[in-house]
């Protein structure tokens, strides 16, 4: 859904809405999926990001996003220094993921403490982004909502239990998607909510025996 401020914006540090603002936003979303600022990051750039990223400040925008700088933060220009000051160690690689991959595809391998996550996504234009894969599971995250991603063993009542728990915590759902790998196998739920999702709701969901894992992905600007 295009909002007025997608047309009259975003307000951003130049020069490119896809290669600078979008790159920053994609990194912010990867950071949100990790749930904290990473200590180490390996970032793989494909296609146009790999080819023209240098002139567009793409790498700076990504480092900035990984430490939490927003697309309109002037510190993006000195993001390498900011990243070092924040204690982030990073390395970039360029690769060819093939014709099928979106030209602005990026793969993040992020580590903080014992937590590690691999996120694949793309900057799809005008500053909008899409994360398509988290730790090998297909997802569709744009960072526009507060989102829960959870994997449940597929048995009756799991969806009802999750929605009831959220409603008990006054969380209003915007969208919900369920993908199943097969009958009685695992089901991936992606739930987008208008409000921030409280930690207590997540703790309550974690107590269900059929839950395999859950990640809270807060909205990025």
């Amino acid at each position, binding site marked *: *859904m*295009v*909002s*007025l*401020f*997608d*047309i*009259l*914006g*975003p*307000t*951003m*540090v*130049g*020069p*490119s*809405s*896809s290669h*600078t*603002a979008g790159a920053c936003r994609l990194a912010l979303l990867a950071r949100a999926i990790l749930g904290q600022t990473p200590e180490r990051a390996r970032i793989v750039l494909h296609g*146009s990001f790999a*080819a*023209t990223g*240098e*002139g*567009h*400040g793409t790498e700076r925008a990504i480092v900035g996003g990984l430490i939490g700088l927003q697309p*309109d933060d*002037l510190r*993006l*220009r000195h993001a390498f220094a900011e990243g070092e000051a924040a204690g982030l160690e990073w390395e970039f690689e360029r690769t060819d993921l093939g014709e099928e991959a979106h*030209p602005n595809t990026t793969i993040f391998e992020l580590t903080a403490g014992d937590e590690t996550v691999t996120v694949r996504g793309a900057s799809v*234009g*005008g*500053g909008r982004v899409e994360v398509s894969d988290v730790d090998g599971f297909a997802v569709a995250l744009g960072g526009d909502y507060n989102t829960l991603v959870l994997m449940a063993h597929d048995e009756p009542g799991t969806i009802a239990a999750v929605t009831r728990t959220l409603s008990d915590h006054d969380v209003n759902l915007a969208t919900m998607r369920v993908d199943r790998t097969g009958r009685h196998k695992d089901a991936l739920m992606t739930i987008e909510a208008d409000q921030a999702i409280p930690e207590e709701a997540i703790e309550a969901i974690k107590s269900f025996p059929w839950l395999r894992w859950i990640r809270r992905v807060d909205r990025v600007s």
Partner: protein
Amino acid sequence: MHRSIQALITEAEESGRRLPDVVLAFECAESGADPEEVRARIRKTLAVMEEAIEEGLKGEVFSPSGLTGGRARRLWENGPRILGERVTATLARAIATLEVNAAMGLIVAAPTAGAAGVLPSILVNAGEFLDADEEARVDAMLVAGGVGGVIAHRASLSGAEGGCQAETGTAAAMGAAAVTWLAGGSNEQISNSVALCLQGMLGLICDPIGGLVEIPCIYRNASAAMQAIAAAEMALAGLDFPVPADEVIDVMGEVGRKMPAAYRETAMGGLAATPAARRLVQIRPTGEPRGISG
């Protein structure tokens, strides 16, 4: 956002509201924000646009590649020679924003960073010579946003999808509508300004040298801004166009879909593939933008 310019105008006329109020009400209904919040955010957006122009006109910013910088200032100081002051100022201001953009300055991507010079230049200029106050400029931004939303829905805003016509063409159509509104044009004249503007931008390819948002982008923004004020002038004088704005927008979408990939932001064709451009891109970026404040 609305699906057609006609739908926007019909809704305004049937409800007896002004065009910007229809766009505002739609945004409030979609986002849940109240009207004053939206207007306040537009005021902030306008302030960023104005600051970028001011910074660019100082002539001190240079991009990391060195391809752009200082040109807005040169035009500002050396013109006008043959045009009127308003037109020369429009050109210089459009270039100013794009030079700030290339130097990693703060800009408003309306609708994209590559076309970020057009709408601010028109709004600041028209604001001056039409003596439009801030609220009138906020209204003009709403009109521009309404038009941009229709184009996003019916065609594309992305150079990678539809060439430069989708970026600077859309920005120009938004600017034409905004200035026609500011000058007191009727809804029909606003619609005509969109058609008159966009018909002149059809087919424009996206062929950035080195793949960078610099050359020809700074000049394309200047010419798009001029196209926009020319279209507004014609529409305000009562000139019309036999193909309605929505159908011209559809043509822009069609041309974009049929445009070869070499002309859609890949830097594989057009100006980007000329011998001169190939020599230029041997220059490696210095790594740091220069002269930018903040």
